Protein backbone atom coordinates (compact mmCIF):
# COMPACT_ATOMS: atom_id res chain seq x y z
CA UNK A 1 0.00 0.00 0.00
CA UNK A 2 2.98 2.32 0.53
CA UNK A 3 3.86 2.09 -3.15
CA UNK A 4 0.24 2.77 -4.08
CA UNK A 5 0.21 5.84 -1.82
CA UNK A 6 3.46 7.09 -3.36
CA UNK A 7 2.05 6.58 -6.86
CA UNK A 8 -1.15 8.37 -5.84
CA UNK A 9 0.70 11.43 -4.56
CA UNK A 10 2.91 11.56 -7.65
CA UNK A 11 -0.15 11.44 -9.92
CA UNK A 12 -2.08 13.89 -7.74
CA UNK A 13 0.76 16.37 -8.26
CA UNK A 14 1.89 16.94 -4.68
CA UNK A 15 5.04 18.44 -6.21
CA UNK A 16 3.91 20.42 -9.25
CA UNK A 17 5.97 20.04 -12.47
CA UNK A 18 7.06 23.67 -12.20
CA UNK A 19 9.00 22.91 -9.02
CA UNK A 20 10.52 19.78 -10.52
CA UNK A 21 11.63 21.97 -13.44
CA UNK A 22 13.16 24.38 -10.91
CA UNK A 23 15.24 21.59 -9.43
CA UNK A 24 16.38 20.45 -12.88
CA UNK A 25 17.51 23.99 -13.71
CA UNK A 26 19.32 24.28 -10.33
CA UNK A 27 21.14 20.97 -10.86
CA UNK A 28 22.07 21.92 -14.44
CA UNK A 29 23.44 25.26 -13.23
CA UNK A 30 25.34 23.43 -10.48
CA UNK A 31 26.85 21.06 -13.03
CA UNK A 32 28.15 23.97 -15.11
CA UNK A 33 29.51 25.73 -12.03
CA UNK A 34 31.15 22.65 -10.49
CA UNK A 35 32.80 21.77 -13.77
CA UNK A 36 34.51 25.16 -13.75
CA UNK A 37 35.15 25.26 -10.00
CA UNK A 38 34.73 22.08 -7.89
CA UNK A 39 34.99 24.15 -4.68
CA UNK A 40 31.74 25.98 -5.41
CA UNK A 41 29.49 23.20 -4.08
CA UNK A 42 27.99 25.30 -1.28
CA UNK A 43 27.05 28.06 -3.72
CA UNK A 44 25.55 25.43 -6.01
CA UNK A 45 23.56 23.87 -3.16
CA UNK A 46 22.10 27.14 -1.87
CA UNK A 47 19.35 27.52 -4.52
CA UNK A 48 18.45 23.82 -4.16
CA UNK A 49 18.06 24.14 -0.40
CA UNK A 50 16.02 27.34 -0.75
CA UNK A 51 13.77 25.69 -3.33
CA UNK A 52 13.44 22.62 -1.12
CA UNK A 53 12.15 24.74 1.78
CA UNK A 54 9.22 25.83 -0.39
CA UNK A 55 8.64 22.53 -2.19
CA UNK A 56 8.79 20.22 0.84
CA UNK A 57 6.04 22.23 2.55
CA UNK A 58 3.47 20.85 0.13
CA UNK A 59 0.60 21.00 2.63
CA UNK A 60 -1.59 18.00 3.34
CA UNK A 61 -4.67 19.07 5.19
CA UNK A 62 -5.86 21.90 2.96
CA UNK A 63 -5.56 19.74 -0.16
CA UNK A 64 -7.23 16.84 1.67
CA UNK A 65 -10.10 19.14 2.64
CA UNK A 66 -10.70 19.83 -1.04
CA UNK A 67 -11.31 16.10 -1.40
CA UNK A 68 -8.25 15.47 -3.61
CA UNK A 69 -7.07 12.62 -1.36
CA UNK A 70 -10.49 11.00 -0.73
CA UNK A 71 -9.75 8.11 -3.08
CA UNK A 72 -6.56 7.31 -1.18
CA UNK A 73 -7.95 7.90 2.30
CA UNK A 74 -10.76 5.42 1.61
CA UNK A 75 -8.52 2.89 -0.15
CA UNK A 76 -7.64 0.98 3.01
CA UNK A 77 -4.04 2.20 3.03
CA UNK A 78 -2.88 2.65 6.65
CA UNK A 79 -2.75 6.32 7.55
CA UNK A 80 0.87 6.14 8.69
CA UNK A 81 1.81 4.86 5.25
CA UNK A 82 -0.15 7.71 3.69
CA UNK A 83 1.78 10.17 5.87
CA UNK A 84 5.11 8.54 5.01
CA UNK A 85 4.31 8.48 1.30
CA UNK A 86 3.29 12.15 1.33
CA UNK A 87 6.53 13.04 3.11
CA UNK A 88 8.66 10.99 0.70
CA UNK A 89 7.00 12.42 -2.40
CA UNK A 90 7.24 15.99 -1.05
CA UNK A 91 10.91 15.63 -0.14
CA UNK A 92 11.98 13.42 -3.04
CA UNK A 93 12.86 15.92 -5.80
CA UNK A 94 14.90 18.16 -3.47
CA UNK A 95 16.75 15.24 -1.92
CA UNK A 96 17.49 13.76 -5.34
CA UNK A 97 18.84 17.13 -6.51
CA UNK A 98 21.07 17.37 -3.43
CA UNK A 99 22.50 13.88 -4.04
CA UNK A 100 23.05 14.73 -7.74
CA UNK A 101 25.03 17.85 -6.83
CA UNK A 102 27.01 15.86 -4.25
CA UNK A 103 27.92 13.28 -6.88
CA UNK A 104 28.81 16.04 -9.35
CA UNK A 105 31.08 17.60 -6.72
CA UNK A 106 32.80 14.28 -6.09
CA UNK A 107 33.24 13.72 -9.82
CA UNK A 108 34.49 17.26 -10.51
CA UNK A 109 37.01 17.12 -7.65
CA UNK A 110 38.04 13.50 -8.42
CA UNK A 111 36.80 12.46 -4.99
CA UNK A 112 38.83 14.95 -2.97
CA UNK A 113 35.96 17.28 -1.98
CA UNK A 114 32.58 16.41 -0.46
CA UNK A 115 31.17 19.57 1.13
CA UNK A 116 27.79 18.41 -0.20
CA UNK A 117 27.85 15.45 2.17
CA UNK A 118 29.43 17.22 5.16
CA UNK A 119 27.55 16.74 8.44
CA UNK A 120 26.21 20.29 8.40
CA UNK A 121 24.95 19.97 4.84
CA UNK A 122 23.24 16.67 5.61
CA UNK A 123 21.67 18.18 8.73
CA UNK A 124 20.54 21.27 6.80
CA UNK A 125 18.90 19.25 4.03
CA UNK A 126 17.32 16.50 6.11
CA UNK A 127 16.19 18.60 9.07
CA UNK A 128 14.92 21.61 7.13
CA UNK A 129 13.11 19.40 4.59
CA UNK A 130 11.34 17.45 7.31
CA UNK A 131 10.64 20.64 9.24
CA UNK A 132 9.18 22.26 6.13
CA UNK A 133 6.99 19.24 5.45
CA UNK A 134 5.77 18.85 9.03
CA UNK A 135 5.12 22.55 9.52
CA UNK A 136 3.01 22.67 6.35
CA UNK A 137 0.82 19.64 7.08
CA UNK A 138 -1.74 21.90 8.72
CA UNK A 139 -1.21 24.91 6.47
CA UNK A 140 -0.90 25.75 2.80
CA UNK A 141 2.23 26.00 0.69
CA UNK A 142 1.72 29.76 0.48
CA UNK A 143 1.50 30.20 4.26
CA UNK A 144 4.62 28.07 4.73
CA UNK A 145 6.44 30.05 2.03
CA UNK A 146 5.63 33.34 3.79
CA UNK A 147 7.00 31.87 7.02
CA UNK A 148 10.23 30.83 5.29
CA UNK A 149 10.60 34.22 3.62
CA UNK A 150 10.37 35.90 7.03
CA UNK A 151 12.88 33.45 8.54
CA UNK A 152 15.36 33.94 5.72
CA UNK A 153 15.11 37.72 5.37
CA UNK A 154 15.04 38.95 8.98
CA UNK A 155 18.77 38.91 9.86
CA UNK A 156 18.36 38.39 13.62
CA UNK A 157 16.08 35.40 12.96
CA UNK A 158 18.10 34.02 10.05
CA UNK A 159 21.25 34.02 12.20
CA UNK A 160 19.68 31.33 14.40
CA UNK A 161 17.14 29.56 12.19
CA UNK A 162 18.37 29.69 8.59
CA UNK A 163 19.53 26.23 7.49
CA UNK A 164 21.89 27.90 4.98
CA UNK A 165 24.38 28.61 7.78
CA UNK A 166 24.89 24.84 8.22
CA UNK A 167 25.92 24.17 4.60
CA UNK A 168 29.43 22.76 4.40
CA UNK A 169 29.99 22.72 8.18
CA UNK A 170 31.90 19.61 9.22
CA UNK A 171 30.93 17.39 12.17
CA UNK A 172 33.78 18.72 14.33
CA UNK A 173 32.64 22.32 13.89
CA UNK A 174 29.03 21.68 14.91
CA UNK A 175 28.41 22.66 18.51
CA UNK A 176 26.12 20.63 20.75
CA UNK A 177 23.45 23.31 20.73
CA UNK A 178 23.28 23.27 16.93
CA UNK A 179 22.93 19.48 16.88
CA UNK A 180 20.10 19.57 19.45
CA UNK A 181 18.43 22.39 17.55
CA UNK A 182 18.61 20.44 14.29
CA UNK A 183 17.28 17.22 15.83
CA UNK A 184 14.49 19.04 17.62
CA UNK A 185 13.47 20.96 14.51
CA UNK A 186 13.29 17.73 12.48
CA UNK A 187 11.75 15.27 14.90
CA UNK A 188 9.01 17.40 16.44
CA UNK A 189 7.37 18.57 13.17
CA UNK A 190 7.68 15.03 11.76
CA UNK A 191 5.86 13.54 14.74
CA UNK A 192 3.22 16.28 14.73
CA UNK A 193 2.74 16.00 10.96
CA UNK A 194 2.34 12.21 11.01
CA UNK A 195 0.05 12.46 14.03
CA UNK A 196 -2.17 15.00 12.25
CA UNK A 197 -2.52 12.78 9.20
CA UNK A 198 -3.08 9.59 11.20
CA UNK A 199 -5.53 10.96 13.77
CA UNK A 200 -6.93 14.06 12.12
CA UNK A 201 -10.40 14.42 10.62
CA UNK A 202 -10.86 15.36 6.97
CA UNK A 203 -13.96 17.48 6.59
CA UNK A 204 -14.81 18.67 3.11
CA UNK A 205 -14.23 22.39 2.70
CA UNK A 206 -17.44 22.74 0.72
CA UNK A 207 -19.53 21.00 3.38
CA UNK A 208 -18.66 23.11 6.38
Amino acid at each position, binding site marked *: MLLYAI*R*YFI*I*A*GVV*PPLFVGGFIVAVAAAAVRLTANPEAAIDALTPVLLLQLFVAGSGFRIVAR*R*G*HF*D*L*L*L*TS*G*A*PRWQIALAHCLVSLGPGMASWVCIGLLELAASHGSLSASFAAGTCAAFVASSIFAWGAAVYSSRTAAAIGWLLVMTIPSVARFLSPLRLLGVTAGSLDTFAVIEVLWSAVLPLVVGVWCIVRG*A*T*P*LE*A*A*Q
Partner: protein
Amino acid sequence: MSDVLVSARDLTARYGRREVFHGLTFDVCANQALGVIGPNGAGKTTLLRVIAGLLSPSEGELRVRDMSPRQAVSRMNVGYFAGDFTLPGSVRACDWGSLATGDAITPERRRIRTLSRGTRQLLGLRTVLSRPHLGLVLLDEPWEALDVDASRWLSRTLETKRDRGASVVLASHDPHDLAGVCDLYLFLVNRRGSLFKAHELSTAGPVTPAMLGNVLERLQVDATAPLRAAS
Protein backbone atom coordinates in the same frame (compact mmCIF):
# COMPACT_ATOMS: atom_id res chain seq x y z
CA MET B 1 -29.35 -8.79 12.23
CA SER B 2 -25.96 -10.17 11.22
CA ASP B 3 -26.22 -8.64 7.76
CA VAL B 4 -26.41 -5.08 9.14
CA LEU B 5 -23.47 -3.34 7.51
CA VAL B 6 -23.85 0.25 8.66
CA SER B 7 -25.35 0.95 12.05
CA ALA B 8 -25.79 4.46 13.45
CA ARG B 9 -27.02 5.23 16.95
CA ASP B 10 -27.81 8.76 18.11
CA LEU B 11 -25.27 10.15 15.68
CA THR B 12 -24.48 13.82 16.09
CA ALA B 13 -22.02 15.92 14.08
CA ARG B 14 -20.81 19.42 14.82
CA TYR B 15 -18.38 21.84 13.21
CA GLY B 16 -17.18 23.85 16.17
CA ARG B 17 -20.33 25.05 17.87
CA ARG B 18 -22.53 24.58 14.81
CA GLU B 19 -24.56 21.42 14.98
CA VAL B 20 -25.01 19.79 11.57
CA PHE B 21 -27.34 16.95 12.58
CA HIS B 22 -28.45 15.38 15.80
CA GLY B 23 -29.55 11.96 17.01
CA LEU B 24 -29.52 10.03 13.72
CA THR B 25 -30.32 6.34 14.16
CA PHE B 26 -30.50 3.91 11.25
CA ASP B 27 -29.29 0.54 10.00
CA VAL B 28 -28.32 -0.36 6.46
CA CYS B 29 -28.01 -4.04 5.61
CA ALA B 30 -26.01 -5.70 2.86
CA ASN B 31 -28.01 -5.62 -0.41
CA GLN B 32 -29.75 -2.45 0.72
CA ALA B 33 -29.59 1.10 -0.58
CA LEU B 34 -30.16 4.07 1.68
CA GLY B 35 -31.08 7.40 0.14
CA VAL B 36 -30.22 10.49 2.16
CA ILE B 37 -32.42 13.39 1.12
CA GLY B 38 -32.29 16.92 2.41
CA PRO B 39 -31.94 20.54 1.38
CA ASN B 40 -28.53 22.13 0.82
CA GLY B 41 -26.51 22.34 4.03
CA ALA B 42 -28.56 19.65 5.78
CA GLY B 43 -25.50 17.53 6.53
CA LYS B 44 -25.67 14.89 3.79
CA THR B 45 -22.00 15.22 2.85
CA THR B 46 -20.97 15.25 6.49
CA LEU B 47 -22.93 12.05 7.15
CA LEU B 48 -21.29 10.29 4.21
CA ARG B 49 -17.83 11.37 5.38
CA VAL B 50 -18.57 10.06 8.87
CA ILE B 51 -19.53 6.68 7.37
CA ALA B 52 -16.36 6.75 5.22
CA GLY B 53 -14.23 7.29 8.33
CA LEU B 54 -13.03 10.69 7.18
CA LEU B 55 -14.78 12.44 10.08
CA SER B 56 -15.56 11.34 13.60
CA PRO B 57 -19.04 11.90 14.98
CA SER B 58 -19.25 14.42 17.83
CA GLU B 59 -21.62 12.13 19.72
CA GLY B 60 -23.23 8.75 19.22
CA GLU B 61 -21.85 5.68 17.58
CA LEU B 62 -21.39 4.53 14.03
CA ARG B 63 -20.31 0.98 13.26
CA VAL B 64 -19.55 -0.45 9.85
CA ARG B 65 -19.59 -4.25 9.88
CA ASP B 66 -19.28 -3.98 13.67
CA MET B 67 -16.05 -1.99 13.43
CA SER B 68 -15.23 1.67 13.59
CA PRO B 69 -15.49 3.22 10.11
CA ARG B 70 -11.69 3.66 9.92
CA GLN B 71 -11.11 -0.02 10.71
CA ALA B 72 -13.81 -1.04 8.27
CA VAL B 73 -12.26 1.03 5.47
CA SER B 74 -8.97 -0.80 5.98
CA ARG B 75 -10.63 -4.23 5.91
CA MET B 76 -13.28 -3.95 3.22
CA ASN B 77 -13.42 -2.19 -0.12
CA VAL B 78 -15.24 1.11 0.14
CA GLY B 79 -16.12 3.33 -2.78
CA TYR B 80 -16.62 6.97 -1.84
CA PHE B 81 -17.04 9.91 -4.18
CA ALA B 82 -18.07 13.41 -3.12
CA GLY B 83 -18.39 15.04 -6.53
CA ASP B 84 -16.39 16.27 -9.52
CA PHE B 85 -14.98 19.24 -7.60
CA THR B 86 -12.90 16.86 -5.48
CA LEU B 87 -10.80 15.77 -8.47
CA PRO B 88 -7.48 17.60 -8.84
CA GLY B 89 -7.71 19.66 -12.01
CA SER B 90 -4.07 19.37 -13.05
CA VAL B 91 -4.11 15.57 -13.29
CA ARG B 92 -4.61 13.80 -16.63
CA ALA B 93 -7.92 11.92 -16.82
CA CYS B 94 -6.22 8.63 -17.84
CA ASP B 95 -3.84 8.83 -14.88
CA TRP B 96 -6.65 9.48 -12.42
CA GLY B 97 -8.70 6.66 -13.89
CA SER B 98 -5.87 4.21 -13.27
CA LEU B 99 -5.68 4.98 -9.55
CA ALA B 100 -8.37 2.56 -8.41
CA THR B 101 -7.17 -0.66 -9.99
CA GLY B 102 -4.03 0.25 -11.92
CA ASP B 103 -5.84 -0.40 -15.20
CA ALA B 104 -6.74 2.49 -17.46
CA ILE B 105 -10.49 3.13 -17.48
CA THR B 106 -10.26 5.89 -20.07
CA PRO B 107 -7.80 6.74 -22.86
CA GLU B 108 -8.56 10.46 -22.35
CA ARG B 109 -5.26 12.34 -21.90
CA ARG B 110 -6.65 15.82 -21.27
CA ARG B 111 -6.26 17.36 -17.84
CA ILE B 112 -9.30 17.05 -15.58
CA ARG B 113 -9.84 20.82 -15.40
CA THR B 114 -10.36 20.95 -19.17
CA LEU B 115 -13.14 18.34 -19.15
CA SER B 116 -16.83 19.21 -18.99
CA ARG B 117 -18.47 18.92 -15.58
CA GLY B 118 -20.43 15.82 -16.52
CA THR B 119 -17.32 14.13 -17.91
CA ARG B 120 -15.43 14.91 -14.70
CA GLN B 121 -18.29 13.51 -12.63
CA LEU B 122 -18.38 10.35 -14.74
CA LEU B 123 -14.60 9.95 -14.48
CA GLY B 124 -14.76 10.19 -10.68
CA LEU B 125 -17.65 7.73 -10.47
CA ARG B 126 -16.09 5.21 -12.85
CA THR B 127 -12.79 5.37 -10.99
CA VAL B 128 -14.40 4.71 -7.60
CA LEU B 129 -16.83 2.09 -8.85
CA SER B 130 -14.11 0.19 -10.71
CA ARG B 131 -12.69 -0.96 -7.38
CA PRO B 132 -13.31 -4.70 -7.16
CA HIS B 133 -15.60 -6.35 -4.59
CA LEU B 134 -17.01 -3.15 -3.13
CA GLY B 135 -18.71 -3.81 0.20
CA LEU B 136 -19.89 -0.28 0.76
CA VAL B 137 -20.64 2.41 -1.81
CA LEU B 138 -21.03 6.02 -0.65
CA LEU B 139 -21.92 8.56 -3.33
CA ASP B 140 -22.72 12.22 -2.82
CA GLU B 141 -25.05 13.73 -5.45
CA PRO B 142 -23.87 11.12 -7.97
CA TRP B 143 -26.34 11.99 -10.75
CA GLU B 144 -25.32 15.65 -10.73
CA ALA B 145 -24.38 16.84 -14.26
CA LEU B 146 -24.64 13.36 -15.84
CA ASP B 147 -26.31 12.95 -19.22
CA VAL B 148 -29.00 10.34 -19.86
CA ASP B 149 -26.64 7.55 -20.89
CA ALA B 150 -24.30 8.13 -17.98
CA SER B 151 -27.26 8.27 -15.56
CA ARG B 152 -28.52 4.95 -16.88
CA TRP B 153 -25.04 3.43 -16.53
CA LEU B 154 -24.81 4.67 -12.95
CA SER B 155 -28.23 3.30 -11.97
CA ARG B 156 -27.42 -0.09 -13.54
CA THR B 157 -24.00 -0.23 -11.87
CA LEU B 158 -25.42 0.61 -8.46
CA GLU B 159 -28.09 -2.04 -8.86
CA THR B 160 -25.43 -4.61 -9.76
CA LYS B 161 -23.24 -3.66 -6.79
CA ARG B 162 -26.21 -3.93 -4.46
CA ASP B 163 -27.27 -7.30 -5.88
CA ARG B 164 -23.74 -8.56 -5.29
CA GLY B 165 -24.03 -7.77 -1.58
CA ALA B 166 -22.84 -4.19 -1.25
CA SER B 167 -24.58 -1.60 0.85
CA VAL B 168 -25.19 1.60 -1.03
CA VAL B 169 -25.66 5.03 0.54
CA LEU B 170 -26.63 7.82 -1.83
CA ALA B 171 -27.10 11.47 -0.91
CA SER B 172 -29.04 13.98 -2.95
CA HIS B 173 -31.08 17.14 -2.54
CA ASP B 174 -33.23 16.14 -5.50
CA PRO B 175 -36.03 13.58 -4.94
CA HIS B 176 -35.92 12.75 -8.68
CA ASP B 177 -32.46 11.23 -8.23
CA LEU B 178 -33.36 8.79 -5.50
CA ALA B 179 -36.96 7.89 -6.28
CA GLY B 180 -37.36 4.17 -6.88
CA VAL B 181 -33.66 3.48 -6.37
CA CYS B 182 -33.46 2.98 -2.61
CA ASP B 183 -34.87 0.60 -0.01
CA LEU B 184 -34.64 3.16 2.79
CA TYR B 185 -34.93 6.93 2.80
CA LEU B 186 -33.39 9.16 5.43
CA PHE B 187 -34.71 12.71 5.32
CA LEU B 188 -32.37 15.25 6.88
CA VAL B 189 -34.31 18.36 7.75
CA ASN B 190 -33.47 20.98 10.32
CA ARG B 191 -30.69 18.86 11.87
CA ARG B 192 -33.04 15.90 12.48
CA GLY B 193 -33.33 12.65 10.59
CA SER B 194 -36.55 10.83 9.67
CA LEU B 195 -36.18 7.30 8.36
CA PHE B 196 -38.73 5.66 6.06
CA LYS B 197 -38.74 2.27 4.40
CA ALA B 198 -39.68 2.37 0.74
CA HIS B 199 -42.82 0.31 1.32
CA GLU B 200 -43.96 2.76 4.01
CA LEU B 201 -43.89 5.55 1.44
CA SER B 202 -45.54 3.56 -1.31
CA THR B 203 -47.53 0.40 -0.72
CA ALA B 204 -48.12 -0.11 -4.44
CA GLY B 205 -45.30 0.32 -6.94
CA PRO B 206 -42.00 2.13 -6.66
CA VAL B 207 -41.50 5.34 -4.73
CA THR B 208 -41.98 8.36 -6.99
CA PRO B 209 -40.27 11.75 -6.84
CA ALA B 210 -43.60 13.31 -5.90
CA MET B 211 -43.91 11.03 -2.86
CA LEU B 212 -40.41 11.94 -1.67
CA GLY B 213 -41.08 15.61 -2.39
CA ASN B 214 -44.27 15.51 -0.35
CA VAL B 215 -42.54 13.95 2.65
CA LEU B 216 -39.69 16.45 2.41
CA GLU B 217 -42.15 19.34 2.22
CA ARG B 218 -44.15 18.02 5.18
CA LEU B 219 -41.01 17.63 7.29
CA GLN B 220 -39.84 21.12 6.39
CA VAL B 221 -43.24 22.55 7.35
CA ASP B 222 -43.17 20.59 10.62
CA ALA B 223 -39.70 21.89 11.36
CA THR B 224 -40.78 25.50 10.95
CA ALA B 225 -44.10 25.10 12.81
CA PRO B 226 -42.82 26.29 16.19
CA LEU B 227 -41.32 29.39 14.55
CA ARG B 228 -44.60 30.17 12.75
CA ALA B 229 -46.58 29.65 15.96
CA ALA B 230 -44.30 32.04 17.82
CA SER B 231 -44.67 34.74 15.19
